[in-house]
């Protein structure tokens, strides 16, 4: 491995951190404006109460909870995918793990905020800790999401350490940034002992994070599943949510990768093959999603419990049919794009599919939450459809902009593609070849015998 190659990679990947273009500031200003607008909307909500939303005593949860479920879903992009790829030793993961892990942390932050936004008396939030009822699924969420946030933050920071060392030693970086890098590099000098420990730590985290991530989305689904509401109270809900989460997570990851690749001209790192591989994963998840959806709706529809039929018919033919079929159509388009166009236009097809999937999954969350609430188990009055108010729209848009904003700041401070992991790829390649040789007939080595 030559130093020049290493230097080239380092230079390439640290360039976005060192050089800041005008477009960056322009976008930053736009995002900040959107977030401030959302804050204003929230202040309106704080001073006038949740009356400024479109919710009512029937549809007591609306857009905020939809966003919550959606963001928590997106969060699975990261950590879970990068952890699975790490554990399974998929070499092609190297340039995409950081992109994914950052999504996780920021999506979780925004997801958690959604719950606070939804509360009638947010200043009492700590009551959940001081007087918590362990039997409430909401408390399971508080616990699981906190653990997930902490561990995914840790999982993001661990592989950052060597990169922080690289940036710390970069002569072009000065001032407060250098101090951040110095602090976050934790005295990294790249000696073998440090490397060994880091590998162990990352290995443990990668394994630990998988059950944590799955528990998180199961618990999110159980907020709904544990109630005795039609179409919520089903055993399929937890796996359905987990599948949906990984599904939307991969789509979000593909979108983030495509944007970063374009903006920072990292075509040499995020190659079509990465999109193609993620596309395969996405096809699997689309198929799974269809399977779960059909299973869920067929069971409910065939059984024909009158309460469930209320909700089901509202979705299939009634007041929510537009949304529902738009969702189905989005997923179908995504599936077609992935299956038929992925091999020729890897990036184009996966990106288009991802756009449809992200939108479709947001609608899916919405059409799980709202129709069940709209169609009472015991309808006591005329059905009224919930429409989000301008405050909810503003806060929602601001939340998405806030997510992008956090990501934006992250990209400016930290290398979005793990420098050391990419640099290490060639060394790893040698090991891989040895391992593959072991599979082959006619050769026995010490490792296979032991």
């Amino acid at each position, binding site marked *: 491995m030559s130093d020049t190659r290493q230097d080239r990679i380092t230079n390439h990947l640290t360039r976005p951190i060192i050089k800041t273009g005008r477009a960056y500031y322009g976008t930053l200003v736009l995002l900040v404006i959107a977030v401030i607008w959302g804050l204003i909307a929230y202040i309106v909500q704080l001073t006038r109460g949740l009356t400024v939303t479109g919710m009512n005593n029937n549809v007591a949860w609306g857009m905020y909870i939809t966003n919550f479920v959606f963001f928590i879903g997106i969060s699975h992009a990261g950590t879970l995918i990068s952890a699975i790829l790490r554990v399974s030793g998929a070499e092609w993961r190297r340039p995409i793990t950081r992109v994914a892990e950052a999504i996780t942390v920021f999506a979780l932050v925004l997801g958690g905020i959604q719950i606070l936004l939804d509360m009638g008396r947010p*200043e009492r939030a*700590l*009551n959940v800790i001081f007087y918590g009822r362990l039997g409430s699924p909401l408390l399971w969420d508080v616990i699981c999401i906190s653990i997930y946030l902490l561990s995914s933050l840790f999982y993001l920071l661990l592989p950052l350490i060597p990169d922080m060392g690289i940036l710390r030693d970069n002569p072009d970086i000065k001032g407060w940034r250098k*101090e951040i890098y110095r*602090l976050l590099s*934790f*005295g990294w000098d790249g000696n073998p002992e440090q490397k060994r420990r880091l590998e162990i730590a990352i290995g443990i985290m990668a394994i630990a994070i998988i059950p944590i991530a799955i528990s998180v989305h199961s618990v999110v689904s159980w907020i709904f599943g544990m109630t005795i509401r039609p179409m919520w109270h089903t055993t399929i809900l937890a796996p359905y949510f987990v599948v949906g989460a990984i599904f939307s997570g991969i789509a979000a990851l593909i979108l983030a990768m495509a944007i970063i690749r374009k903006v920072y001209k990292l075509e040499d790192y995020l190659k079509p093959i990465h999109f193609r591989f993620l596309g395969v994963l996405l096809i699997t998840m689309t198929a799974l999603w269809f399977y779960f959806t059909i299973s869920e709706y067929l069971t409910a529809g065939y059984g024909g419990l009158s309460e469930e039929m209320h909700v089901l018919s509202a979705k299939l033919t009634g007041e929510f049919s537009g949304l529902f079929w738009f969702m189905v159509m989005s997923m179908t388009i995504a599936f077609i794009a992935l299956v038929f166009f992925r091999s020729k236009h890897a990036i184009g097809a996966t990106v288009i599919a991802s756009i449809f999937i992200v939108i479709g999954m947001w609608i899916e969350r919405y059409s799980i939450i709202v129709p069940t609430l709209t169609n009472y188990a015991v309808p006591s009055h005329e059905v009224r459809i919930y429409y989000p108010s301008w405050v909810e729209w503003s806060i929602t848009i601001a939340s998405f902009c806030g997510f992008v904003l956090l990501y934006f700041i992250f990209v400016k401070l930290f290398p979005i593609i793990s420098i050391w992991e990419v640099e290490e790829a060639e060394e790893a390649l040698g090991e891989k070849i040895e391992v593959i040789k072991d599979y082959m007939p006619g050769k026995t080595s010490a490792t296979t015998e032991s």
Partner: protein
Amino acid sequence: MNAVISLVAVVVLFLVGLLGGWAGILFGVIIPYLAVALFLGGLIYRVISWANVPVPFRIPTTCGQQQSLPWIEQAKVDNPSTTFGVIVRMALEVLIFRSLLRNTKTVLRESGKIAYAGSLALWLGAMMFHWSLLVILLRHLRFLTEPAPFLITILQEVDGFLLLQVWMPVLYLSSILFLVGLAYLLFRRLASPQLRYISLAIDYFPLFLLLGIGISGLWLRHLSKTDVGSIKELAVGLVTFSPVVNNTINSLFFGHIFLVCVLLAYFPFSKLVHMAGVFLSPTRNMANNNRAVRHVNPWDYPVKTHSYEEYEDEWREKMKGAGVPVDKE
């Protein structure tokens, strides 16, 4: 041992303060006035005595590149050459304790290598303690002012907002941060053998004193409550020089206030005076403009000089006679 001495000293002082329940005038009026007088007088005395110390040289021993040729980038904050730069550097030091951010921990690795790792703990503890102390001081203005300024009320509400309805009356976030910060600063001294070795009783004393003040204050607010109206009457009386001591105030209050008085009186004569000292720290309050501006050493005595001009004036004729070229004819 040093820690125990300080702890005992603070406990004794607190017990002395409890006597205020019986001698309200002494502990509620006379001692507070004396303490404030000592605090203000002592601080002024210290600052003026520092101001009288001559500064022989500008001290450029700071990090970062000093101002030099135009194509060499100057570290404008670390090594400022203008007053504005000095103000920025000083503000960062006073407000966010920038130099503590440079705190590093030296670790001897198993491999025999020495590594320097950043250590944020001291900075965090110090920030927590100092900032919450400021908030707590400002919050206490509600006792010292009548009517309390609007901003103090807002501060008080915001401080309580995050932990609202946790306790009755509302627990303030700053109270908790204050005690946690202090506890860390104390723990730090006790936990590390090196730090314990260099810590004297006077290092522990202020920590215990502040902890005592914090705990007695929290106790007074939440557990053993007293008539707040009477306390405010006393406080307002003190600042308007017409003090009234009500007998409805309990002893714990006097314990609290006596420790505060001790702190105030002790302040100018201890390491705590860094509050004023930080502004006079020569490596922080001077611009490094040695190359641009002449700095006259105040210790310089008038040296008797004899310039070439004078020399020539004196010897011109003789020089001309000898054929030596001269500047002026």
